[in-house]
């Protein structure tokens, strides 16, 4: 019985439990709701939860544990000395294929039991039901797969029985304790609390898991490649044949240079736009411009990348390249730090402006009144009262924008080029940490080679940089707040 069917059955039992619990609570109070500690539906809910929670928990645990146990005992059957991870994945595929073949009627259970690896072309049979196998099936694998299938089938049956029994037992217990004095409302409240806490911990645990996997893979990389060369090397030339030089500095330089140009574009424009919107614009203008600006924030970054590649790059080449009207000859190709930086800046404008707008709006009107009442103009008020008061928040917004710029990938891939180099010229092509992570992991990389694992070290570096930026942003906001509130 599949897990979905079991869940449906358990839900049906819980629904029945709800009705029963409600009825019993009402009956125990003689039909008078005022005689109950809680509203009748709480008693129903209490019974339903008693059915639902243990059963579903059991189902989840069983579904995790069963494959592990089955594979452990199947692996024990296999001859020693084979690469068990590879063989086990074959076994699993064959077992799944057999199950599918039976389900689709291509094989009968008896036929499966009688299968002979040497006599039948199992690969072709399974191919017919949509399971592709890399190599022919050996007798050992077929045996293991048959055992695997049999054990899984038995396990599934027991799973269904145990889970449904748990649901029934839960209903029975919940129902039997239902009486007018039971504090069903408080019990339901406690379950709600547990549910919310569970959701919060899932988020935290996933983050923790991601960080841990980053750390382990980074350590693995540093076992294969010296950390000092990674952090201090000035050349980036990976080659999967070996002898790569994996120095992060050119990539970090590219990242910071592009982010710097992006912020140079985004911060003044975004901030001025925010000041205009919050201090000068009439409600009508504001009502149109603000949503328009925020729409910019919804454009996928790949579109900005296209814009960089097809519009901004060629335009810059025309201006600053050889034979341009300025005759500067600074730029050879459309992909350059400047191209990516400008476009990324445009991308960040709505981000900076909408955050700053919120922050400026949060400055109390009384401060504006105070300044205007002393005969200050609006721009004097903005410069001398509003911006200083909003500064911590604005710095926070800028640092958040910087985090985004550092983590941005698509615009860089399309706009900045792929050459890792340390150069001061903003019209040179350069590349960034994120773009190199992509290029190291796409293609036929062997995931245990240093050339692929370096991606984790790069990711970890980015993670640490953005973390430091965010902590710094928080710190700034805190210190200023202590001073001014």
């Amino acid at each position: 019985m599949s897990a979905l069917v079991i869940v449906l059955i358990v839900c049906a039992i819980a629904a029945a439990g709800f009705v029963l619990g409600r009825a019993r609570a009402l009956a125990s109070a003689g039909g008078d709701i005022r005689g109950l500690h809680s509203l009748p539906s709480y008693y129903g809910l209490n019974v339903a939860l008693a059915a639902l929670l243990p059963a579903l928990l059991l189902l989840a645990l069983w579904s995790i544990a069963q494959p592990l146990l089955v594979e452990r005992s199947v692996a024990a059957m296999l001859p020693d000395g084979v690469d068990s991870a590879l063989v086990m994945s074959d076994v699993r595929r064959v077992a799944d294929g057999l199950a599918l073949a039976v389900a689709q009627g291509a094989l009968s259970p008896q036929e499966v039991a009688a299968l002979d690896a040497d006599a039948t072309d199992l690969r072709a049979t399974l191919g017919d039901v949509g399971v592709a196998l890399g190599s022919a099936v050996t007798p050992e694998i077929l045996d293991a797969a048959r055992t695997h299938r049999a054990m899984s089938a038995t396990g599934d049956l027991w799973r269904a029985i145990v889970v449904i029994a748990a649901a029934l037992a839960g209903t029975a217990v919940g129902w039997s304790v239902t009486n007018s004095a039971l504090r069903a409302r408080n019990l339901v409240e406690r379950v709600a609390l547990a549910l919310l806490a569970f959701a919060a911990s899932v988020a935290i645990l996933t983050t923790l898991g991601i960080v841990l996997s980053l750390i382990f893979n980074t350590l693995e990389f540093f076992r294969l490649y010296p950390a000092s060369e990674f952090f201090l090397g000035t050349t980036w030339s990976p080659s999967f044949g070996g002898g790569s030089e994996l120095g992060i500095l050119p990539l970090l330089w590219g990242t910071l240079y592009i982010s710097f140009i992006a912020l140079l574009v985004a911060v003044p424009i975004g901030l001025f736009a925010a000041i205009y919107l919050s201090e000068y614009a009439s409600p009508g203008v504001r009502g149109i411009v603000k949503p328009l600006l925020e729409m910019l924030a919804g454009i996928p970054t790949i579109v900005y990348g296209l814009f960089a590649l097809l519009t901004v790059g060629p335009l810059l080449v025309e201006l600053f390249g050889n034979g341009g009207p300025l005759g500067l000859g600074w730029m050879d190709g459309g992909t350059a730090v400047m191209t990516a930086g400008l476009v990324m800046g445009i991308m960040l404008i709505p981000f900076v402006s909408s955050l700053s707008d919120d922050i400026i709006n949060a400055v109390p009107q009384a401060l504006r009144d105070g300044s205007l009442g002393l005969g200050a103009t609006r721009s004097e008020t903005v410069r001398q009262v509003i911006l200083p008061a909003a500064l911590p928040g604005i710095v926070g917004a800028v640092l958040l924008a910087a985090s985004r710029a550092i983590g941005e990938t698509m615009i860089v891939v399309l706009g900045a080029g792929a050459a890792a180099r340390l150069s001061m010229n903003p019209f040179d092509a350069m590349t960034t940490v994120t773009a190199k992570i992509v290029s190291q992991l796409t293609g036929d990389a062997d995931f245990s080679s240093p050339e692929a694992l370096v991606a984790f070290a790069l990711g970890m570096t980015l993670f640490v940089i953005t973390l430091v930026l965010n902590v710094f942003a928080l710190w700034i906001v805190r210190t200023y707040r202590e001073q001014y509130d």
Partner: protein
Amino acid sequence: MDDLRRTEALLSQQQTKISARNVQVWYGDTHAIKDVSVEIADKTTTAFIGPSGCGKSTFLRCINRMNDTIPAARIEGDIEIDGEDIYDRRVDPVRLRAKVGMVFQKPNPFPKSIYDNVAYGPRIHGLARGRAELDAIVEKALRRAALWNEVKDRLTAPGTGLSGGQQQRLCIARAVATEPEVLLMDEPCSALDPIATAQVEELIDELRQNYSVVIVTHSMQQAARVSQKTAFFHLGHLVEFGDTATIFTNPEDSRTESYISGRIG
């Protein structure tokens, strides 16, 4: 000699500084000020009294066009200062507000140092020619607001770190530092103890020698102590306006009498 001074004072009191005619104010659909006409004399203190929400602050804010900053507010009628219509197009509200200072109902110090708070107006209007002059202006303003002794050792501390009453006096110092010709004070003593209140009242009396002061207050005693003229507002109407002594001893309108004796409010 004494008599001469008094007649002089009387003479100048007759001179009208602010003259409002048929002023109406709406906030959206709320009719907050209904047809108010009043003449406020130069070198006098005028008190606005009346129950909460009757429009005292609103009317006060009309006099320096602070209501311009509220999008929902709409004003009709004329207000003239020194014979000049302040709602005329040619009048720059920024210049007007430098001339007509205001102390707000709620203290609103800037998130700056105490010194910078007081120096804000003088700096903007270029009243000081050097650091020393600015220091002198700041000290004088803080002394007039009876705050100097409490803050002279911590002029660089943030103004927002002061107590509520100190903040209120800081805002008074900030307003007088720009040397306005008219000072509008919206409940300037609401958070002050009796000693500070007495000092602020002394300041008002001093300012009155040269300027025209308008003060909103909920304290009848204060109105009686500091003002020469009193205006009683009720539900957006100016019910009665006249010499303070007359209003408090012999009011014409029964509503004024009830309010003063504490029966409405």
